[in-house]
Every structure is written in C-alpha cells, then in structure tokens.
C-alpha cells in the first residue's frame, strides 16, 4: 500500500490529499458533533460552507485554469437556486422529498449550464477587462430580472408575469412561487451537511479529473498562451466554453444547495458583492489551486462569525477587512514571499538537524 502511494504520480497523490481534507473535515465534524463539542453557530454554517467551497472550486476553473476573469458567478448561482427551488416548491407533496431534492439539483445544474452556454458564446470572444465587465453586467441583469419576475402555479399549469402577483390570474387553489422582490418564501429546508459534502466531492471529482485530462491541459494551454495554443490546433471556443459551462453548472448546483438551507430566497442575495466574495476565495486560496480554494472558502466563511465569540461584535466587519488585506499581502507581496521562503528554509534546517542529531551538521548549514 505504502509502496503504491510512493510510486503513484504526484498529481494523483495531491488529489488524494485534497479528497482527504474534505472527508477528514466531514469525519471530524461528525465526531465532534456526536460528542456535543460543536456550537450551534458552527453547525448552522456547515451547509453554507459546502456551497461556498463548491462555488470557489468552480470559479477557480474559469479564473485559475482558463485564465478568464468572471465577475458574474453569483448570477449562475442565482439561476440554479431559483430554478431548482421553484421546482421544489411546485412539486411539494407530489413527489417524495429525496426525489424532489435530486430533481431540484439537476434542474438547477441544467438551467445554470444553459445560461453558461448562452452567455459564454458571445462573451468568451472578449478578453480580460472586457470579459470581466460583461460578466458583471450579466450578474446584475439576473438580479434585476428575477426581482421583477412573478411565477405562480395552479391546476392549469405555470403562470408567469413581469408586472405583479395579481396579474398572474391564479385559480383559487393556485399559489405564487416567485413573488417578485419578495422572492420565494416558506421553503421547506432540505439541505444537510452530508448532502453538501457529497456535492463537494462530486465537484472535486469532476474538476480534478478535467484538469488532469487532455481537455484540462488544453484549457491551461489557452490560459498560458492563446496564440500558441491555437497554432498547435487547440479549438479555443470549444475548450473555453467547456470550462465556462462546467463552472456555471456547479455554481447552479451550489445555488440550489445554498437555497434549500434557508426559508426564503431573494435575488438581491446574489448581487455583485457575492460574486466578488467568491472571487476573493479563489484569489486568496491561490489561482489554480483547488485545495487553496477549499480552505480559503471555508476559513473566510467562518471567520466573521468566529469574531462574534471574541467580543468583537461591533468591529467584526472592520477586522474582517483588515484580516483580508493582511492575508492578501502575506500571500502575494514580494517581501512576504521572501520572508516565507526564508522561514521555510529555516524550519527545514531545524527539521533536518532534529532528524539526524549525530549527523555532520549539514542540516544546520542550510539554516
């Protein structure tokens, strides 16, 4: 067994570590929860953490591997959430709950994917700043359209209006599903931490496999040099769209997971602030590092709530911002990188000296 781990490819080993982190986190939470050591506040955050981790992983595919800056990720999340939850609400009591959740997830994924295709075809012809601005606009359009959208259901089927709930002309037994700016209310909650972890692992499996496949290498080749990639016959449109749509699909699934954890759903929740937050997870975790995205998403979700318990209620958002700046600097400022390298070398030196106490002292020399 050990031999096999030693001889396997380094990428496979790295993937196993990533899966291990997720499953280890799951096991640790279950154990601590069984022992009653977790606070209600932390338990309440487990599903949102899973959703944010999925969003960060999927955005990393676009930003880190495809190299295109997307500021509209929350828009795909919103489409997934509203389509999936609408289905969930419309079929309440008609199909078993597990089937309802499964279908909601699939519908959320498909709808977000379709929009990914629709947006991706024209938008991916743009580059850099232009692409970022168009995706930002897309996110805002989604917010405003859903804000004005009224959908109801009765025996005759679905009714859609862009004016108000009264103009849906619902029959007596009908109910309004999406009520404009009020969004969807009284959603029966269905998300669980286990479901969240299953979806995170699924996202990981798809994204990691893609990255280490032929298609994944084509995607990173496009990121590194579009002209060079084109010259060796890589189909730019195909691979760009592939990355963009897969990214959108998982954002949609994360949206459904997130929405089914709350009683109400409003489109304002998915404005550009949310897109920027997800981008922040990716940048902080390191672009192109899936493991980094996971850790950054989880840590930054827990952080503001953690600060409540240290008696920093009034200043927690201020401190959150300062911590972010500090972490960004630590991650990418040249001086900080230099310092980190030196410290790492020192630590290695100490470790080597510790390992070979009777050695020649070559370990110390490294420090």
């Amino acid at each position, binding site marked *: 067994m050990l031999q096999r781990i030693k001889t396997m490819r380094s990428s496979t080993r790295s993937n196993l570590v990533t899966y291990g982190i997720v499953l280890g986190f799951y096991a640790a939470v279950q154990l601590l929860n069984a022992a009653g050591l977790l606070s209600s506040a932390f338990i309440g*955050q487990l599903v949102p953490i899973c959703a944010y981790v999925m969003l960060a992983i999927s955005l990393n595919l676009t930003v880190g591997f495809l190299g295109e*800056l997307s500021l509209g990720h929350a828009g795909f999340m919103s489409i997934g959430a509203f389509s999936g939850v609408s289905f969930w609400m419309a079929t309440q009591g008609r199909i078993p709950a597990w089937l309802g959740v499964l279908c909601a997830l699939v519908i959320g994924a498909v709808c977000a994917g379709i929009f990914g295709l629709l947006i991706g075809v024209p938008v991916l012809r743009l580059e850099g700043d232009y692409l970022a601005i168009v995706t930002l606009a897309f996110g805002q359009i989604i917010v405003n359209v859903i*804000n004005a959208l009224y959908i109801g259901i009765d025996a005759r089927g679905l009714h859609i209006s862009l004016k108000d709930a009264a103009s849906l002309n619902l029959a007596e037994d009908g109910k309004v599903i999406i009520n404009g700016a009020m969004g969807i209310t009284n959603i029966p909650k269905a998300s669980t931490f286990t479901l969240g972890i299953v979806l995170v692992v699924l996202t990981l499996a798809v994204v990691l496999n893609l990255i280490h496949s032929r298609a994944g290498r084509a995607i990173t080749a496009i990121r590194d040099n579009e002209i060079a990639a084109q010259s060796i016959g890589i189909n730019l449109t195909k691979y760009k769209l592939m990355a963009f749509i897969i990214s959108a699909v998982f954002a949609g699934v994360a949206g459904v997971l997130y929405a089914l954890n*709350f009683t*109400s759903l409003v489109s304002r929740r998915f404005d550009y602030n949310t897109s*920027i937050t997800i981008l922040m997870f990716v940048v902080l975790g390191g672009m192109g590092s899936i493991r980094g995205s996971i850790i950054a998403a989880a840590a930054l979700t827990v952080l503001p709530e953690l600060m409540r318990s240290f008696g920093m*209620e009034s200043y927690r958002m201020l401190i959150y911002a300062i911590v972010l700046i500090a972490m960004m600097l630590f991650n990418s400022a040249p001086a900080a990188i230099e310092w980190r390298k030196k410290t790492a070398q020192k630590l290695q030196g100490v470790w080597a000296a510790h390992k070979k106490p009777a050695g020649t002292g070559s370990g110390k020399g490294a420090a």
Partner: protein
Amino acid sequence: MKKYLSLALAAAMAFSLAACGATGTSAPAGNAADSTPAASTPADAAPAEGGEAGAATGTLNVGGIGPLTGGVAVYGLATMQGAEIAVEEINALGGLQFELDFKDDTGVAETAVNAYNTLKDSADVIYGTTTTDPCINVAAETFNDRFFQLTPSASSTAVTEGRDNVFQMCFTDPNQGASAADYVKDNNLGESIGIIYNNADAYSTGLRDAFVARAAEIGLNVVEEQAFPDDNTPDFSAQLNALAAANVDLLFMPIYYTPAYNIVNQAQAQGFAPKYFGCDGMDGILDIEGMNPDLVEGLMLMTPFNASATDAATTSFVEKYQAAYDGLPNQFAADGYDAMWALYYAANAAGIDADNMSHEDICEALIATFTSGDFSVDGLTGSGMTWSAKGEISKDPVAVRIENGVYVTM
C-alpha cells in the same frame, strides 16, 4: 489580468470598509438615576401597573438581531437604540431585569441565521429582526426551537404566517397599504392618483400591491404607476415626466425617505407639484442632512410615531434618546422601545420566572398572554395596542402633515 484583479479586490475591500462606517456603539443609554420611570413609562391596561415591579422575576435574556453594519444599518441601529433606552428604564424599576444582547446580521438572511444560532444558547426570547427577509428565516428557526419572537419592524405577512410564536410591533404591509387608500378616499386627498415605488424592495411592492387592490375596491382613481429599481437611483426624471403627463394630483410614495426626498426635489425642479402621501418609511425625511424643509412642506405621511409630539411619554423618550445617541429618534427606535415594554408587561402578566423557566415555557406563556384579548399596551406608537392570534398588531394608523418643518397630526 493581475492588475485588474487587484483593482477588483481593492474595490471589494473598499465596500467592506464602507459597510463598517455605520458600525454602532452600544454605549448605555442615558443615566439611570435621572430617568423617571413612573412618568415616562407608557400607562398600561394589563395587570402590571406602569412603574411598579410586577409578578415576573429574574433576568430575561433578550437576544436581539438586526443590521448594525451594511446598507440598512440605520434601521437596525435605531431598533437597537430604542430598545436599549427601554431596557434602561425597565431595569431601573427593579423586579424583572432585561439583558439585551444585540447581534449584527448586516441585513442578510444567512448572517441573521448565524446570529440567531449564536444567540440561541443563551437567550430566553428573540427580539428582531429589523428587516423582512432575514426575519422570515429567523422566524422559521424560532418556530422550530420554540422561542418567543417579537419583531419591531419586519412588516411582511410572510414573517408571521403559519407561526404562532412570532409577533409584530409594526403594521403589516397589506394593512398599511389598505389604510393609506382608505385615508386618501375618506379625506378626498386626490382625484387622479399616481404611484411611484421601488419594485426591487419587498416593503415597497407590498404596500403598492395593497394600495392598488384597495383602491380598485373603493373606487380610487389610480392613473399612473412608475417604478424604480434601487433606493440609490440618482435620476427620476423619466418617471416624473410620465406622472406629470398623466396629470397626477396626489402622488402615493410607499418608499423610504432617501429616494422620496430626491423625487420631491427633482419634481420641484421640473415644475411638477402634486400633493405627496407617504407611509412609515417616509419617517426620517426631516433628518436628512442639508435638506430643505420648504420642499417637503405639506407632505403627508402615515406614521405610528411623531417625535415632535408633546405628550410626556414621547418627550421623555426623545430627550433620553438625544442625550444618548444624538439625533431625533425615528419610528424604528420607537417601535423598538415599545417592543421592550410590551415584552415587560407580558412577562409580568404571565408571571414569568426568567431564571428558572425554559425558553419553551416562556414562549408558550408569552403567546398565551399576547393573544389573550385583555392584554393591551399603551406605547409611543399607539395606545391600546393588541395582537391577533396570527401575531399581527392592531393599532390606529395616524396621518401627519409636515408644516413648518415639524409633523402636525391631521
């Protein structure tokens, strides 16, 4: 790419920092020694007489939730500060003590649920949340966990619907929209009525829907409706032109005071001068920095609270509020103040033993008291306020007109 990213992230930071600008101080209100509870507490029809310690004992832990940072922080801070003044007065009476622990929810449902989860290990009752969408989520949680919940200002019916443990201190949106239509009709305020509202805001659309429905019933003539998508919309000229073209003589504005002031300002610049009629979100329009009171002269609004009223309870509250926080209290603060006193009277009427009763028992006892029919509260925002089994409050809407920069009850 890198350059752009750093720009985007810098913008994100600026946003987070701006959100912190409104961070509140939770300094204790006023000085307990010079408060005069007997004179300032609202008189009460319930068994406990105002000013006397009632049957309840112990310390009631009130878990408060509302936005203290972010775009809607001004409302959360007001509900917290109003409540703090009431708590100060209640604790000065002796007897049942209140301990208010107020958590920030930034006006976002997810954060509100997090705040509730933080509070639920220590709180006996939940006070909040200030805004509607977070409140719906917290209400679902308190319903499952059996906490008594009283919201000062979440006005949608979706908050209380199907939940026996959630009560409102404010009017519901449909209720207020319908009474606004009735008021306009009864007083013959306008022949051709126009509406301008924020169609991305639940409060505004809720009021608009109820007003339009009621107007159709009672034969009010609504000639033109215009919407805008955001309270920070800078320019309303398109909407105002359409309203002016329809010869609107009364403009119904179920919106908050910031956009309302901009609308009134721009209408005047365009030479469009209808009568204006607003709802409780309009309260605060006189406190806008650098505002011109001439512009809003004659503006009418329905508000449960009038800070320039001269009764003893209001003047005492306004005085204490100004001493503690500077600035005039608005109706959010008054609702917060009344909410604490309502809790206090109900706890006394129910004989709550806060130290030894579980939150489930407190919840059941308070529900029974609030819905008992003979329980009523006199406060700053109304007298003889009672609650239905649905959790909705019944109090008389009051309309005021702005004359010479102050509210005058109509």
